[in-house]
């Protein structure tokens, strides 16, 4: 083989192995949520705050939230019916009780079957993972509230909450 061909083969095998590795972590059954996306969801659910990954709440929570967007945490976030329905389908398909990654399963298990919380930041899973952070820290100007995951978890919008990516801003 010519040396440039060997080089090409080498590069191709490296990239395909790393692609395989990357998808292995993201696919069902892994520890992290899959980096799912939908254009309408991205456009409509990120103007007031970060994008919350669908795998953070169960289907019944998303259903309840999407049915009351005109009174969404004290604000009017209403959408036209077609957009609302498309986003609801996306959220439900990828919700915590429909995903088989470890993180989503644990969140789901921490919510009583008869409850449909609208806040991730009030689930038992969340409070147990953040019990060492004081309320004063969450109120810092650079953070705002516990709901602002992305202030500390850089990969939050992709559903990445791994410990290696956590940094609490001053």
């Amino acid at each position, binding site marked *: 083989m010519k040396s440039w061909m060997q080089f090409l083969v080498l590069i191709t095998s490296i990239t395909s192995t790393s692609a395989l590795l990357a998808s292995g972590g993201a696919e069902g059954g892994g520890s992290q949520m899959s980096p799912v996306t939908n254009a309408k969801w991205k456009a409509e659910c990120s*103007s*007031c*705050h*970060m994008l919350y990954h669908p795998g953070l709440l169960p289907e019944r929570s998303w259903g309840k939230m999407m049915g009351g967007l*005109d009174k969404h945490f*004290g*604000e*009017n*976030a*209403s*959408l036209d019916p077609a957009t609302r329905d498309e986003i609801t389908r996306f959220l439900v398909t990828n919700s915590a009780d429909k995903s088989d990654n470890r993180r989503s399963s644990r969140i789901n298990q921490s919510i009583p079957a008869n409850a449909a919380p609208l806040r991730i930041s009030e689930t038992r899973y969340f409070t147990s993972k953040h019990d060492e952070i004081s309320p004063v820290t969450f109120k810092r100007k650079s*953070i*705002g*509230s516990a*709901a*602002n995951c992305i*202030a500390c978890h850089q990969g939050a919008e992709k559903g990445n909450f791994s410990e290696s990516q956590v940094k609490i801003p001053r």
Partner: protein
Amino acid sequence: MRNKTMLLALLFSVNALAATPQELLKQYEGQAKQESPAFSGFSAERGASFFRTARNHSNGQKVSCATCHTADPRNQGKTRANKVIEPMATIANPQRFTDAAKVEKWFGRNCKDVLERACNAQEKGDYIQYLISIK
């Protein structure tokens, strides 16, 4: 009937596409004339005071458009959830008032949040007039 639906659909899709603030003002002018025969144009001054005036909301808070869009709309604002809002004044953000559907969506939401009612065409026009007049 079919033709009428098609025409409506066409009009709607044209509306949803890129527009200029002037085109939006024209549309609101048409509506304002229908809403009030006494309509005599839009005013940047009225828009400025509309933008800044704080109202007593029934939830006990004082709110204005400036609460989120800041008193100087050439600056970035902030949502209640701490996310940056790009400036509202077109001099600082030429993207503003170029998408009729987006503008209507946010007037719909924010007027209800601040005034607890819908805005009329006069108020919408004054508001845009103010934000495009800032140098």
